């Protein structure tokens, strides 16, 4: 019984279609999306802006309901947000009026988790991310990269099994972005979570994920997918920074770039 449960896909998206209505028009945002993400897998979804990739994350998180089709996490249909699912935004969305530790604890507070245990976890996470001296600081005293690490601690403090990352690095400058994606990739691999990353940055997707899904323009459809492997690096998985230097990287990049047809509309 346990055997079959752990073999089941962590996330199963089946025939998901989403229409949304405004007084001006009806928009088909996503069309017949089918995707299975294995437990412990790191999947990246790339697509041009407005292709509905962030909408797909909102559907998986349970904030939106599909017009047709179904989404299940470990066989249970998603109907509302669940504490098992963690979400990271493009902006850090830290609350300026709360100290760092209180920001990290907001999830535990709202989910009414055990306060003592949550606090211990929060302090442990902050210490591991090199933020122990900022526990009682306010977000305005931290740099962009530090703030995004606090946001990661806030997400992980509630111990989710599935992480949804909605372009979590795109608001950062280039250097911080490379350093932080290395750091976060290492943390997430250690924690052995299932991860869905949405991004428009092809390099970020290839360097971090096990599998890259390419989405078409609106209405969003899955156009193709690529399993990412770096045999030239050897048996172990390279860090994102090392992956960018591997010989396979440029090939994946060119293929996905062509598939996105970014320069088609002018």
């Amino acid at each position: 019984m346990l055997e079959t449960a752990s073999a089941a896909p962590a996330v199963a998206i089946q025939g998901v279609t989403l229409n949304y209505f405004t007084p001006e028009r009806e928009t088909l945002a996503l069309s017949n999306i089918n995707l299975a993400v294995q437990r412990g897998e790191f999947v990246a979804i790339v697509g041009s802006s407005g292709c509905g990739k962030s909408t797909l994350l909102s559907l998986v998180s349970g904030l939106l309901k599909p017009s047709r089709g179904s989404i299940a996490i470990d066989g249970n249909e998603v109907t509302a947000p669940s504490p098992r699912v963690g979400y990271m935004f493009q902006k850090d969305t830290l609350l300026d009026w709360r100290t760092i530790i209180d920001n990290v604890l907001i999830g535990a507070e709202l989910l009414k988790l055990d306060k003592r245990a949550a606090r211990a976890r929060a302090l442990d996470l902050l210490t591991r991310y090199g933020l122990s001296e900022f526990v009682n600081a306010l977000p305005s005293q931290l740099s962009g990269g530090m703030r995004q690490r606090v946001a990661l601690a806030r997400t992980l403090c509630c111990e989710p099994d599935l992480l949804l990352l909605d372009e979590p690095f795109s608001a950062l400058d280039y250097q911080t972005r490379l350093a932080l994606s290395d750091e976060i990739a290492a943390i997430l691999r250690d924690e052995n979570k299932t991860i869905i990353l949405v991004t428009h940055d092809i390099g970020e997707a290839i360097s971090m994920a096990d599998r890259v899904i390419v989405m078409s323009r609106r209405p969003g459809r899955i156009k193709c997918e690529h399993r990412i492997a770096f045999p030239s690096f050897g048996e172990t998985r390279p860090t994102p920074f090392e992956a960018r230097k591997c010989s396979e990287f440029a090939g994946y990049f060119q293929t996905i770039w062509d598939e996105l047809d970014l320069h088609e509309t002018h």
Partner: protein
Amino acid sequence: MGKNAVTAQLPHDTTGKPGVTMPVPRSEAYTAYLQSLRRRAFSIQLWQIGLVVATLVLWEVAPRAGWINPMLTSYPSAVARTFMAMLEDGSLLTHTWTTFSETIVGFVGGMVLGTLCAVALWWSPYLYRILDPFIVVVNAVPKIALVPIFFIWLGDVASIYAMAIAISVFVTILMLYTGFQAIDPDKIKLVRLFGASRFKVLTKIVLPGSVPTMISALKVNIGLALVGVIVGEFQAAKAGLGYLINYGSQIFQMNLVMTAIVVLAAISSVLFLGIQALEATVLRRHGGNKAGR
């Protein structure tokens, strides 16, 4: 290089340990710059004091020299005498306290009522759509036009409070509602992902995120509440600074009118400074930036 690193860290040094940082030697040009800053600040203060003194002197001299009719303006020296006399017999304190307490009650009432209405409108967008045109129209009506009606409906005491509330409540509703709408939707999404109810969204995100907006509303309202109280007192009161101004002008006692106006200016300065002090404390605790949403 080492010196550069220290200077670069100075703005981030929030630990407040000035003794720990290395003394950076000042260049001559920097000393001159600091001196010019001090000189400028001093000359500005000098101008300000000079303006006050010049106004007082002109006010004293012009009626005495026969340039203007003293019946119309009185003199600073006469106002000061009236002020001292009224202070001694205690009447000034009574009138001042009446106006002050009415203003505070009206101000707090307007804020509380306005906040409750803004929350209701935020809670129900449907209600907002229904009421929106009415709020805009009622806000545009000069509330002072209602003074006689309030007097007839509510009598001499309650009409003053009603006036202070009426004049400040609609601005509060509009300011706060706009502030609520400006809250980052991702922050609301964040707490909803943690299963927050609409009430929790309100108490954890919308209200604390709107503290800077509330402070702005306080600043606007303290002045408006004072206007409401004075106008209300013109119509109805048997005490208060508005009553003194009205009474003084009817019996052509400019000393009385001017005294009341000076005290009024003092009250509004005190209230405004109070709000400013509150703003400084709250916003520091609130993350140190005004864009706290």
